[in-house]
């Protein structure tokens, strides 16, 4: 339950704004408990509701009928047009300006640091440089000097930005 909520929340944090809005209503529903298998994202109430309905005897199950767990959550999300795990290209509206030590680019992580690749500002303007951006210590790109800093997902506080 906790892991599920955490991934929902974290996905919500880095999702596009209008999705965040739709998301918070979905995650609000997580508070309720029911064992009925969800057939829509809005019906998801927790891991118990993410069990596939299975196919009628003698038929081949569809993905919707047999997916279970996080894969089902992802599928239900797709049906509502929401990319649960945010697998699309990185969108960084707040990053159209270069990160600085005072105003770094914030990077979500499950650890105390994250490997970050910088391709410059705007995106793609220099050879990619990979390095670690820490929660306690920033990461800085050798090529363009942009500063990145990680924040831990699932920690109690809200994200340090906006």
């Amino acid at each position, binding site marked *: 339950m906790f892991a599920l909520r955490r991934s929902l929340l974290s996905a919500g944090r880095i999702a596009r704004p209008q999705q965040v809005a739709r998301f918070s209503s979905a995650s609000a529903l997580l508070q309720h408990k029911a064992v009925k298998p969800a057939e829509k994202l809005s019906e998801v109430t927790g891991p118990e509701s993410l069990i596939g309905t299975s196919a009628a005897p003698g038929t081949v199950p569809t993905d919707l009928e047999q997916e279970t767990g996080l894969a089902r959550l992802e599928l239900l999300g797709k049906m509502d047009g929401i990319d649960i795990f*945010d*697998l699309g*290209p*990185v969108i*960084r509206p707040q*990053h159209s300006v270069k990160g600085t030590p005072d105003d770094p*680019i914030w*990077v979500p*992580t*499950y*650890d105390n*640091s*994250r*490997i*970050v*690749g*910088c*391709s410059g500002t705007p*995106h*793609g303007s220099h*050879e*990619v*440089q*990979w*390095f*670690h*951006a*820490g929660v306690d*210590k*920033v*990461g*800085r*790109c*050798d090529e363009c000097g942009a500063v*990145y800093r990680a924040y831990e997902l699932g920690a109690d506080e809200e994200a340090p930005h906006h």
Partner: protein
Amino acid sequence: MSLKLNIQRWLFSTNAKDIAVLYFIFALFSAMIGTGLSAIIRLELANTGSPFLHGNTQAFNVVITAHAILMIFFFVMPALVGGFGNYLMPLMLGASDMAFARLNNISFWLLVPSLILILTSALVEAGAGTGWTVYFPLAGIQSHSGPAVDLAIFSLHLSGFSSLLGAINFITTFINMRTIGMKYENVPLFAWAVLFTAILLLLSLPVLAAGLTMGIFDRNFNTSFFEYAGGGDAVLYQHLFYWWNHPEVYILIIPGFGIISHAVSAIASKPVFGVQGMIYAMWSIGLLGFCVWSHHMFAVGLDSDTRAYFTSATMVIAVPTSIKIFSWLATLYGGTIRLNVTALFALGFIFLFTIGGLTGVVLANSALDIPFHDSYYVVAHFHYVLSMGAVFSIFCGWYLWSPKILGLHYNERLSHIHFWLMFIGVNVTFFPMHFLGLQGMPRRINDYPDAFIGWNQVASLGSIISIVASIVFIYVVYDQLTNGLHQGNKALDSQFKPSFMGTNLNVEGYTGPTLEWTVSTPPSLHAFNTPAVLY
């Protein structure tokens, strides 16, 4: 770890890193057998009058066949694609593993029976004395009765199957497993190299398999695909074989290109010059590699228009190849060059591979190839591109990445000794073969006129030097595995420190163009807990 856990980890492994280690062990094992066989070849050719095998020409032919197959299928391909490819490609893409982890296990374990089959083939009856090309009718039932050739063909089938499964895996991994935000243009050159290698394997191996299967049928089931008496055509076999074999030589060298690109960038402390050009060069080498196969067949009686086409098409490949060479030189130019052993092998590769490419362009002239074909000039050519191209790139990759992979450092002085012995050894062995070829000494013979004694003795001396070099390398690896910790954990330092250009602000020491250096040393089996992200 208990025996059961060990069996689970190594026999049933689905982890690309463990499987890569298995590939490295397998490659080292085969390389040692292959080297032993090369010693037999050079001892036999050290003088006239068959001094070693006492006139047993079939035994000599079996030895050269097994030598070539072991080196190509069981040393170079497993080391470059199976070893470096499996270990580094997922890391460079930011992937936790290969796309099909269990398929990966099957790919490796198919190679073991394949190796057993080829070794058995050399040991039963009179062995397969066909040469690694397995030409018919020499490989037919009249010339090679008994099961030896069938075993050799089954061995090639199995290893081909292993490569095909691996190729599917690499292509899927490349397309599907890149980390968040990583576009194709951000993928490092080695991963590109493995992708192109996999595509070449996928498109060429089925044709070899078909040719070999037709051979099996000719031998055992009374068909006559390659048998003139039954209306077949032996030249058809050569077309099928070389449709695969020319792409195969690029399969052997393109991963090496990838390794050299990374090494050159590391030793010069610069990003590779012209990355896009490098990618397009590999792509066009791969594509053109399918259009030139008959340059191996200039002597079979092709008409002159066909020969003119294959001559020109072959020479066109020199263009993308030169783009790569010049881009490496441009990467080195102006860099702060660190002359460590990785650099020596990378520079050695660039220098010697260029010589091999040059003799290739000579051979590509159909008129010149009529006298050169099947002479020692060809042997010199392909050893310059393979023994000094592909093999140097394996050593280069080992010295560049093994401290990262193992977390254990090697003895740098010994590694320099290894390089110089190897460099001298292979050149003394193979350079004189150009002269022998120009003077008309044919390949695949175990005895020769006295006029050729001089350079043959030099070549045999050189082979002893290279064998000593190989023993030094085995000691370097042994020393690395047993004393590596005392040599300090220098995975990053030996390649990247001191860095005069970077910042030292970062959490971990490394900031640079490829992902594999950012993970822990040695990388944990599941290297990316939070996936890397490219902004």
